[in-house]
């Protein structure tokens, strides 16, 4: 008797709500239109049936969206840098990774918030390489010690030197993305190998509301041509780039994503595109874009429902971040809230793990903690396995009717099952008070600090072959 295990999941939209938001997004594209500043993309849209006016204003008929949705692949697989399929993005699979471009980081030695440098990118990548539940790397830093015109090339090179996991990368325009692509080809062993087993995904942003700059479209078209997976949210934060009400912000963000998707599929039919508008809120006191708010978790859960009802494409999401300035109780609470809700709403590629200060500061400790929180939510999301073994009637009978002193703790059933039956934390402390005190009376921040330091000093990243390293050096020197 095999009883399927129910996977706990969150549903936040009815079908009627999902269809209404989708209809609003299509209406935005048909009636309001958008500003397309890339001449090539403008021409493609016009040729395909888009209505162009005032130079670069475009309105899109709904059928173009339907066409793009039907040609975009519904499953995207990302591979690690050794060619293993580690991130199959389909259905409700969730994979967590870090974020990009933090201006500051919390120094591991001093705890101080300081400007990021290239070495930080390497440290974060190395930590990601070691952490079991962190599946992909982003830079976590916007280093001040590299030439700014090639900042993303340096950052990408530093990441591939320090991890073999998949990498989500940023680029500025068509110029530097070509250099990054060259490095990726070297790592993968050639253009064809990279195409077959992509280990990279590009993250680019248009500008809300409804503005598509030339440099951003260059990257989109480049990725479409090379079959590099890409996602293209636009920063339509409720109250900032978008209306303050979540439904309108989602409709706008989805419309913007659909523009990206249409251009993308026209430039490279069947190329992989991750859906996801990133709808957070602009905080109405500080005007920061919040990374710890419940709204972002809610809108991405809603988007996951829309994926299931309408779009079918894997989605891009966020979790494990906070608006707190230090890794305190707020940071833990906000990180856990978004991690568990991303898991339960079955978001696919989940980034920004380890951010503090609304994404301005990265923290190695925060990433380390998040890895454990992801494990916790995976355990919860796994549901309750029900079968003869787990119902354990025999064990109950043995203990209940056995010798005096017989107990579950000594029963074979416990020995055989406890590792799977229970979540065994590594960093969350459950020790008795006296032992905790003896071990230094540490809080979670301290324990994560110690663990991150241990990983950075002990973990060995399988190095890249010399010729790849030389090739990377060549690209950085401008050859």
């Amino acid at each position, binding site marked *: 008797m095999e009883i399927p295990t129910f996977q706990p999941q969150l549903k936040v939209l009815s079908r009627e709500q999902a269809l209404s938001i989708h209809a609003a997004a299509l209406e935005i594209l048909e009636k309001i239109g958008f500003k397309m500043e890339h001449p090539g993309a403008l021409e493609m849209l016009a040729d395909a049936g888009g209505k162009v006016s005032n130079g670069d204003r475009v309105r899109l008929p709904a059928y173009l969206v339907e066409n793009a949705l039907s040609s975009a692949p519904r499953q995207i697989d990302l591979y690690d840098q050794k060619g293993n399929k580690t991130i199959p993005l389909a259905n409700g699979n969730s994979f967590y990774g870090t974020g990009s471009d933090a201006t500051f980081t919390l120094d591991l030695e001093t705890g101080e918030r300081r400007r990021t440098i290239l070495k930080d990118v390497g440290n974060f990548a190395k930590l990601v390489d070691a952490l079991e539940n962190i599946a992909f790397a982003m830079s976590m830093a916007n280093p001040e010690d590299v030439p700014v*015109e090639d900042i993303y090339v340096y950052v990408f090179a530093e990441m591939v030197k320090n991890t073999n996991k998949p990498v989500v990368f940023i680029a500025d325009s068509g110029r530097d993305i070509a250099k990054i692509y060259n490095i990726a080809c070297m790592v993968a062993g050639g253009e064809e190998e990279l195409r077959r087993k992509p280990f990279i995904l590009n993250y680019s942003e248009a500008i809300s509301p409804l*503005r598509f700059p030339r440099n951003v479209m260059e990257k989109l078209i480049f990725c479409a041509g090379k079959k590099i997976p890409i996602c293209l949210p636009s920063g339509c934060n409720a109250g900032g*780039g978008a209306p303050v009400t979540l439904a309108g912000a989602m409709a706008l963000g989805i419309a913007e994503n659909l523009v990206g998707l249409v251009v993308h599929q026209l430039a490279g039919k069947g190329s992989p595109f991750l859906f996801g508008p990133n709808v957070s809120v602009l905080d109405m006191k500080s*005007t920061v874009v919040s990374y710890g708010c419940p709204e972002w978790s809610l809108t991405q859960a809603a988007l996951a429902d829309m994926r299931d009802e309408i779009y079918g494409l894997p989605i891009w999401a966020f979790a494990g971040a906070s608006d707190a300035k230090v890794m305190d109780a707020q940071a833990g609470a906000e990180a856990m809230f978004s991690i568990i809700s991303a898991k339960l709403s079955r978001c696919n590629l989940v980034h920004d793990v380890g951010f503090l200060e609304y994404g301005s500061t990265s923290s190695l400790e925060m990433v380390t903690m998040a890895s454990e929180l992801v494990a916790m939510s995976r355990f919860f999301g796994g549901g309750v396995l029900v079968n003869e073994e787990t119902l354990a009637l025999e064990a109950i009978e043995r203990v209940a009717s056995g010798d005096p002193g017989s107990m579950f703790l000594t029963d074979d059933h416990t020995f055989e099952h406890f590792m799977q039956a229970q979540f065994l934390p590594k960093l969350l402390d459950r020790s008795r008070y006296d032992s905790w005190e003896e071990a230094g009376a540490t809080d979670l921040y301290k324990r994560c600090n110690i663990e991150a330091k241990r990983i950075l000093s002990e973990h060995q990243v399988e190095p890249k072959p010399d010729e790849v390293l030389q090739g990377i050096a060549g690209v950085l020197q401008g050859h």
Partner: protein
Amino acid sequence: MSEFQTLAEAVVKGDIKTAVAETQSALDAGSKVQSILDKGLIAAMDEVGDRYSKGLIFVPQMLRSAKTMKECMKLLQPFFREGDITSKGKVLIGTVKGDLHDIGKNLVAMMMEGAGFEIIDLGVDVPPEKFVQKAQEVEPDIVGMSALLSTTMPSMPKTIEALLKAGVRGKVKVMIGGAPVTEKYAQEIKADSYASDAGSAVSKAKELLGVS
């Protein structure tokens, strides 16, 4: 603020209709334009700024007050040209070359306007030469630059360099801001001031010009 209490209260509440009517009746009654501005509108905006910094009101409420003030200012505008009233200072502002983001810059502009500065907004993607040309034309007290992207930050020192070459740098104070911008960066590129948000942009601007 007793003389213009109803006006000031309307601005604080963001009641555009009442505020505009009060401004008009103050003008009709022969009140000094400078007094309407200082004791009515700016005093109200100071109160709004104070409430905001104490966390008593939210940004949209503050911006509604700024909008209310702006509507009242339209009635006072003709007197500006006649030299009857003076602003706190003239601010030339824009998002630097290569950067198309403007929410932060717009917020700063609105807040400064609310505080009594005159704003000339150049928009987004403003090349150094445009900053220079406009600075030569309008002779601002402050040039404010904004950038959201780290890749566009180098446009800030380039603009400062251009102001220097054109002989304008000595006549203006340069303020910078934006997500990746830091105090340290401001020092490195020899800007006069850095502000981390719209509220502090106002107080930094006042500091730079020695006005209150």
